[in-house]
């Protein structure tokens, strides 16, 4: 098992009555609720937490991209990675995503990641995502082109990383006479590509074709639904003629560790509800704009999502039984994660320790307990055999 520490950098200062007064934490959530005076310590505290993960021995730390929302305050994940690049020494920096379809100049993404990769001597992991439906409202990107733009931007970026320039790009959504990347990435042929997703079959099929890593996002969804996603991804890999490696499946999950089960729940639960009730508040039309997923996926998810949305969660018992998050003593957390790992077959654990408005002391305590008491006991689980170069099948 490989361990990554994920952060959402949520806005922690929403008013108590947010859920009653506002219909969305995204797109239209008034930014009068944002206070830069409070934002300054919050950003720096979050960055401290990711730096702590580096010191604690996590293999990597993860940032991501969302726009115009209270859920995650990283409109530019590359800026966050840049902040971390020279303050960390060991950890890989997994940038989950860039939201490729939002950008009219994908070579900017290729350039920034190459810069970071060279600065960090090859510690960059490049996440590429289609992005939530909400981002298409915020950036006025026609969602009926989401998939086309994603694929074309990906192709352009990988070609820019791997081919000598200058070359011309003649595509449908992108057209450039001169693509000529300065700098080129440090890692050869290019930084590893992970694709985080929330279960759209068409994404998983494509990731399996490309042999990239698929990461089941830590979006609040019951364990079983997310297990089925991972299972489908594995089937896609089989259809492509190979068996997925453990580390080709990332498992995002909210984790909280305290001294005892009882204490863990007491410390975590109020902040969990801040997250579930406030930060995830999204009207369905914003999260499902037409074309953002295929028609088949739209039809399949329309009903399923209605049943399993975290907005419908009301008791801690449901949260526990559904396996939405893993919370407890080091031993409980180890058992649950080992059980999940065996049932899902993931070899990358992408753990989110900072939920909602949890205080930093608790986040740091939880991360430390996890690194010291859980990680060593899970290391052996779902480890891939080393890749043998030149072996005869």
């Amino acid at each position: 098992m490989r361990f990554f520490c994920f952060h959402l950098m949520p806005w922690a200062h929403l008013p108590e009555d947010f859920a009653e007064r506002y219909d969305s934490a995204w797109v239209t959530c008034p930014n009068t609720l944002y206070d830069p005076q409070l934002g300054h310590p919050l950003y720096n505290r979050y960055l401290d937490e990711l730096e702590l993960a580096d010191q604690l021995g996590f293999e990597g730390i993860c940032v991501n991209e969302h726009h115009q929302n209270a859920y995650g305050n990283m409109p530019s994940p590359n800026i966050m990675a840049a902040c971390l690049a020279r303050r960390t020494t060991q950890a890989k920096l997994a940038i989950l995503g860039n939201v490729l379809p939002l950008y009219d100049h994908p070579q900017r993404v290729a350039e920034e990641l190459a810069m970071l990769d060279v600065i960090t001597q090859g510690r960059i992991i490049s996440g590429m995502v289609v992005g939530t439906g909400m981002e298409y409202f915020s950036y006025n990107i026609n969602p009926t082109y989401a998939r086309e733009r994603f694929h074309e931007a990906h192709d352009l970026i990988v070609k820019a990383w791997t081919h000598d320039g200058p070359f011309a790009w003649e595509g449908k959504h992108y057209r450039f006479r001169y693509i000529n990347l300065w700098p080129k990435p440090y890692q050869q042929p290019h930084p590893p590509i992970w694709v985080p997703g929330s279960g759209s079959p068409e994404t998983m099929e494509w990731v399996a074709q490309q042999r990239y890593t698929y990461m089941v996002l830590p979006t609040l969804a019951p364990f079983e639904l997310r297990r089925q996603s991972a299972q489908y991804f594995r089937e896609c890999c089989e259809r492509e003629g190979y068996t997925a490696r453990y580390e080709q499946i990332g498992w995002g999950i909210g984790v909280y560790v305290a001294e005892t089960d009882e204490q863990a729940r007491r410390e975590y639960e109020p902040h969990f509800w801040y997250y579930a009730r406030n930060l995830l508040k999204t009207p369905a039309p914003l999260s499902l704009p037409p074309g953002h997923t295929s028609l088949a996926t739209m039809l399949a998810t329309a009903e399923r999502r209605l049943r399993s949305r975290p907005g419908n969660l009301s008791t801690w018992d449901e949260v526990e039984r559904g396996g939405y998050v893993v919370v407890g003593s080091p031993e409980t957390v180890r058992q649950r994660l080992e059980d999940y790992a065996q049932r899902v077959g993931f070899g990358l654990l992408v753990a989110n320790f900072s939920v909602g408005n949890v205080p930093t002391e608790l986040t740091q305590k939880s991360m430390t307990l996890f690194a010291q008491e859980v990680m060593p006991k899970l290391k052996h689980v779902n480890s891939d055999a080393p890749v043998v170069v030149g072996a005869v099948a």
Partner: protein
Amino acid sequence: MNYREEILTVRDRHIRLLRAGTGQPLLYLHDTFSYTWTRVHDALAAHYEVLFPMHPGCAGSTDLDDIEGMDDLVFHYLDVWATLGLERPILLGPSLGGWLAVEWAVRYPEMLRALILVDAFGMRVPEAPATDLLRLDAAQMRPVLFADPNAAVAHDLIPDMPAPESLEARFRARQTLARFAWQFPDNPKLSRYLYRVKTPTLIIWGAHDGVVSTAHAQAYLRGIVGAELVVLPLCGHLPLVEQPEACVHAVLHYLARLGA
């Protein structure tokens, strides 16, 4: 409801076509909320040959694929018309269909007998911006689309819990709306070219349209020489659905006066 249904092959696309009546051809360019044959079409078919094709992307027709904007859609309809081989049509278009009719009329006005725009998209009116329909759920959408959001017809068309068998057609219609009208259901350049519409034009508008207000009707009226405007009281964005009798009356009366 006495209409025939056929599949029209237009170049490499398959288009579902509903048709009835005899007389001069009237091409109905549908919107993305109501895309079925109604008694409005029956009433028109008593006087005209009504042709009601489904847009690419919508139920029964092939996908949008490479139709990326209004110019592509106009070319598609030129091909539809060439395939049908009929004489100059009267165009009748509500909402998105009205916008399409205008985009056709500014390009090839000589092809058309008359233009009837019903609460048409297409105009950019900065002081009265169109509503972003695609961010609204059903309960928010009904008062925007209808003067009386509690009427049965409003709940029939925009239900809180759509019948599962209607979902695919609904998703397809929404996708078509998004393709052409994502965030801004207009063509900012269209007003520049309205002078090219030499076709007799009737504009019908719901007084309570919450999507494109009567300011948009006024913009069309100012831009199209000789156009006439009928504003229907107690009516929202979809007059053909909410005030069908008044609409049919206005259309037939106007066309009779034209001698069409």
